[in-house]
């Protein structure tokens, strides 16, 4: 598995898109910090971008890599390796290379700016950790879709739809149900609904460290108690981990029956 990982990783790290992606984050980091001069504001803007972009890029890279390397995967499948290892290697290769682009692309400008002296270092690290989680989650989800869909165009469509669902549609349904049922107690509902979408959960985790922490109190005790505590933080991170682990398990399960 490590060998496959290594080569997938090499391959992706040399791809033009990885450079573009890396350069994008690098430019973003520099522009935000040196034009804005306000680290905490930069973190908020970055959050807005990371929460939308990392899932999208993860999704697209995931399906693209799967379909583009289909023939090569077949060659690998004929080698004496367990097929689960091949796909886990590829999966980790993509996720790691995307994560590296993210962490280096944003990390360099922040270090150049003197982040280590800034109090925002914790918020910023949280941002990178969550961005990495989103990479791993959405590459896993898109790999699942690609594995289940033979047709490349269809697979691509489903993957984009999946991203759109988590990034936009889900929140739309969420908001409409909140407004429609606003005479009922909605604390628990909104808590569960937030937890069930990795993008929403990531957003809340970052906002908790930023501007929402006081505003959240406004929405009732359940929310404040839950997210305000270490237990809440721990639980949220565990749920993010579950969002990685479950698709990976399904991937391995799917692979047992899959024909190439």
């Amino acid at each position, binding site marked *: 598995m490590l060998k496959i990982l290594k080569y997938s990783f090499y*391959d992706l790290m040399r791809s033009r898109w990885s450079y573009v992606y890396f350069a994008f984050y690098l430019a973003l980091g520099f522009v935000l910090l040196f034009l804005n001069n306000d680290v905490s504001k930069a973190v908020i803007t970055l959050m807005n971008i990371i929460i939308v972009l990392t899932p999208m890029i993860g999704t697209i890279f995931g399906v693209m890599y799967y379909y583009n*390397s289909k023939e090569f995967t077949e060659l690998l499948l*004929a080698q004496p*390796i367990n097929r689960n290892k091949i796909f886990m290697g590829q999966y980790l290769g993509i996720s790691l290379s995307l994560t590296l682009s993210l962490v280096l692309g944003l990390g360099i400008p922040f270090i150049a700016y003197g982040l280590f002296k800034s109090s925002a270092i914790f918020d910023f690290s949280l941002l990178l950790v969550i961005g990495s989680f989103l990479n791993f989650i959405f590459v896993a989800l898109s790999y699942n879709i690609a594995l289940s869909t033979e047709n490349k165009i269809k697979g691509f469509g489903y993957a984009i739809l999946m991203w759109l669902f988590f990034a936009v549609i889900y929140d739309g349904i969420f908001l409409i149900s909140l407004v429609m049922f606003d005479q009922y107690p909605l604390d628990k509902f909104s808590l569960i609904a937030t937890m069930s979408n990795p993008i929403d959960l990531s957003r809340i985790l970052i906002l908790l460290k930023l501007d929402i922490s006081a505003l959240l109190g406004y929405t009732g005790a359940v929310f404040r108690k839950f997210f305000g505590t270490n237990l809440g933080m721990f639980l949220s991170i565990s749920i993010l981990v579950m969002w990685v682990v479950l698709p990976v398990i399904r991937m391995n399960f799917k692979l047992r029956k899959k024909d190439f």
Partner: protein
Amino acid sequence: MIDFKNLHKRFGKLTVLDGLDLAIKKGGISAILGPNGSGKTTLIKCLLGMVIPNEGEITFKDESVLKKWDYRNDLNYLPQIANFPPNLTVFELIQMVKNLRPKESNEKELIDLFGLNDSLQKKLGNLSGGTKQKVNIVLAFMFDSELLILDEPTNGLDPIALIYLKELIQKEKEKGKTILITTHIMSFVDEVADDIVFLLDGKIYFKGSIDELKKHTNIDNLEHAIANLISKQYA
């Protein structure tokens, strides 16, 4: 050496292999032929563990291959379409495949044979189709394994490379290897194959030597003999 017993494979409603039985002896070159959609590729992929049969048993050297993977160390596979990670170099790719198999390899010789020395440091994404196929052939032949499975090996090769390929196949045959080939080029079959396995509707329709086939169909030309077999499907 290889035994397929009562092999069934359906893709949805489409039945591709329908109770196929086939035994292939050690040594010699078998060409697997059949019209489009007759299940040639599926059969090979079943053997390679890429397609999982609904029913039936496959044994390789008297051991079941289903749900296993280490038996693949004893076979080499040349896939139909040569498409490699575009950002790795030829050299890295060869190193990678070598890395994956704990086996001796003689890639040097093959690289020389196909004149790939100049391309070693090039990225695979920048190679022409023919060159990629040469790399593909190097990857398939560089290990010393008892079984070789070649899926459309002649794709995109120039005449000289084709000659080298044929020589290569002959050489392997002389070493006592078992070779399975699927192809649409009948002259190539005529030239290299000892046995022909003809698939129709997911079953073995004919299995025997080329001479036996010619006798069976009463046609002296292999191409027409095969055409004759296929036409029976359309009838």
